[in-house]
């Protein structure tokens, strides 16, 4: 009886242990991440990209990212440096195309394409579709720096072509922002670690709500340890895009 009283007192006074997220809550967490970043209308962002690679000169780009999330279409148009201007990517119906105006040719690329030779993938600049592409499993709660975070493991759904078959997320409990990602190969080998230290929101009329985006993304290559890429989203334009923008003809026209 006396022991039971001590146990009750101990449980009462002990700090509350992290309650595990059940599968439904975990799925909801991932759906919320997608929902916050989703924009029902068109999306245009001015982006700066900088990559450092071992024994190489730094690679730097200014580019525009165009998205029509409803149709899952995407275009990247490189603006600078001068030698890269007019190059671009186009994604339609799960096809990723690369265009180089200097040779006037389109080339089919895979989801694993390193955009502009940096450590950035198509998915990093596209709409978040984590709940469509992966199944989620809560792994635990912990601290990342001074932030309380949920750690969640994502595994790619069968038949979905993604850059990495499994991804580990660190999600800020307070805001729901993804602060850190680890991306793994099929073997489980860690391939890339990403950090998202700054988030912003922008009011979208088409969504009738806020659209969240990571203003700063940092990618660290875990295979070539000396390689890292920084992506900065400099501005967002939410006006409707040209109906013919997501075509080869439009991208070709930008370099004529």
């Amino acid at each position: 009886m006396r022991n039971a009283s001590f146990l009750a007192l101990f449980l009462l006074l002990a700090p509350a242990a992290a309650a595990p997220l059940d599968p439904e809550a975990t799925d909801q967490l991932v759906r919320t991440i997608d929902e916050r970043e989703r924009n029902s209308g068109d999306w245009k962002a001015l982006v700066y990209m900088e990559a450092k690679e071992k024994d190489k000169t730094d690679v730097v780009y200014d580019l525009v990212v165009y998205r029509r999330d409803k149709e899952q279409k995407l275009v990247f148009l490189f603006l600078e440096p001068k030698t890269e201007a007019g190059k671009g990517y186009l994604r339609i119906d799960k096809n990723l195309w690369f265009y180089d105006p200097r040779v006037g040719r389109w080339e089919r690329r895979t989801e694993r394409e390193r955009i502009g030779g940096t450590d950035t993938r198509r998915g990093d600049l596209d709409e978040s579709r984590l709940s469509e592409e992966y199944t989620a499993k809560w792994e635990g709660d912990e601290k990342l720096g001074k932030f309380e975070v949920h750690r969640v493991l994502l595994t790619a759904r069968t038949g979905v072509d993604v850059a990495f078959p499994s991804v580990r997320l660190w999600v800020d409990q307070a805001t729901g922002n993804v602060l850190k990602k680890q991306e793994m190969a099929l073997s489980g080998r860690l391939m890339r670690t990403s950090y998202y230290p700054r988030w912003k929101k922008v009011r979208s009329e088409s969504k009738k709500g806020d659209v969240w985006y990571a203003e700063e993304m940092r990618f660290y290559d875990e295979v070539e340890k000396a390689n890292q890429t920084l992506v900065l989203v400099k501005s967002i334009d939410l006006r409707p895009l040209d109906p013919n923008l997501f075509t080869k003809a439009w991208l070709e026209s930008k370099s004529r």
Partner: protein
Amino acid sequence: MSGSSSSRVHQGRILVEIAMRNLVASRVRTTVVGGIVALGVVVVVLGSSLLDSIDAGMTRSIQGSLGGHIQLYNAASRDPLALYGGTMGESVLEPISDFARLKGAVLTVPGVRLVVPMGIDQAMVSMGNVFDVALERLRADVRRRMANGPPAEDPEYEAHKAHLRRMATLLQQELRQAREIADETSGVYKDRKADFDALARAVEGGFWEHFDEDPLASLEFLENRVAPLSMDGGFTFIRYVGTDPEAFQKAFPGAQVVEGAPIPPGQRGVLLGKLYAEEWLKLRAARRLDKIREARDLHGRRIAKDEELQRWVKENTGQTRDILLQLDPVRTREAVRRLQAALGTKESDPARLVSALLDTDDRNFDARYRIFYAELAPLLQLYSVKVGDFITIKAPSRSGYVSSVNVPVYGFVEFRGLERSALAGMMSVLDIHTWRDLYGYLTPERAAEIARLKERAGATMVAREEAEAALFGGGDAPPAPSSAPQVIDENRLLAAGGGKGAREDLFLRRYGQAETDAGVALNAAVILEDPRRIEETMPLLVEAAAKAGVRVKAVTWLEASGIVGQSMKLLRMVLYLAVLIIFAVALVIINNAMVMATLQRVKEIGTMRAIGAQRRFVLSLVLVEVVTTGLVFGGLGAAAGIAIVRVIGWTGGIAATNDTMYFLFSGPALIPRLGAASLATSVAIVFLVSILSALYPALLAMRVTPLEAMQSDDG
């Protein structure tokens, strides 16, 4: 004095007479020992002439193809120059930023005939899948029609459309089986169903009837929905030497254009390596037929007994798609007609006909091979790239960005003697201007532009180890300020950046010699008037370049040839070792024969000693016998060796039966050639070996006493 001299002559004559008598008297022994000597000489003459021929052939091949006599490269380079690649891949060399300056300096050195700029690298060539290639052709037609207006008749455009429709039909047939076995309840099936529906639409007459109403949308449909279903194509890698094609042609007679024409002076272009084209660009069925033929004719292999050949035949009969996809409806009808006639069948299904043609066995192979090349091949494009085409070469440049360049294919190049070498025969020759574009030397202007972009972005990189602390250690929840949507005008930004990246038809430009020389190169081949002066010229070249402000290293062609050079050195060592072993064995055998012969003659030598013969006389006697045997039989052996070398030459040489032998022989056969110097050396060495091997038995003979002779029960 004259009396003593006359006595020596007399003694010498007696010595020779006794020696000759002994040799004649002991015919069997003389023949055995002489035979061994003769055999040794034959082997040495033959071996040294083979070694000389291999050495000279490979020297000629490498010097005449890529190596030159001396190679120069930036002295600050960490890696050594490896023309054919090293064990760790391509060597990373610091650039020679101004080749013109180096050339000017090197040409002041006496005895230098030519200096050729070079840059060796690897890049990717995008091949696309067969659908993408056909669609690219149709898109070019559409662009042409949109720019100039559709002509009244456009047979090329109609043929391209008909071809694509046929390709879609073939693809539909191929995927039908996959659909039949698919699990209709799975999620994948839904995706596949959408694919089958898209394919069905691409085959329907209605789609093609309305194609011209919105050709761009129709193309996008085919490119994005149909072409991805054809799972082939992709990239191949190309290894090339960027150079001044005119100087290269003068310096390297071993590089021969086997199809097409050389790159015209001052123009951009590429000559593709013939072996590269065979291995990577040729229609797979044709390549397999070639390999089966080679295996049968050169190596004596038979389909019936060889699993690999059987596998190739099976692959050929099962994979007719590559061939069928190339045939538009008109060519398909023609192919059916020709194959029916050639095979004597009434089969009308093109797939079954092609499969029947490629279903070869040892009995019908030669006939089927001939039918393929005579009847079917003229209707096909055997190589995915042909002379006159443009290829897009893409390479990660030294400035970090990926460079792509279109370059016209002028022809196919083969390096004489290295045609079959996987290392050397794969090399293509590219003009240096295109090479410089791909190499992407970071000019000061480009470096300044990148610095400006970085400064404008105001970005700072965070080290990996400090990232979490620096990015999340700050404390409070990350701010989430709202940002108002802004206006992004890409046209204005593109104009402000200074370039729209318009397509440049660089291949139309013409370049003068000064333009070709002025620029970056990675190494330079130096050709001398006299190749024997390589060693003494190297320091002079380094000194002359240093005076002009260019610090270079000089290496011989053999050092520069990397793996190829190492294998050549190894080969030389193996051959020399083989010759050494032959000599060692000959020495032991001759020595034993002479010891046996001497022991048999103990009584005779003892008797000679008893009647007053001095020890020196006995020693001389044995040596004269051996020398005479060596001279006579060595001469006979040399004559026989020469005769064998000549006969091998007359009968076409020793055929190379595999790629390694082809490489060693620097061609399809090794024709040994006799070098006077090596012949004389070989005979002298055998002669010396004979004398050395006779020394021990001669000493034994010298020690024989009359008493030992009398005690001997021999004879």
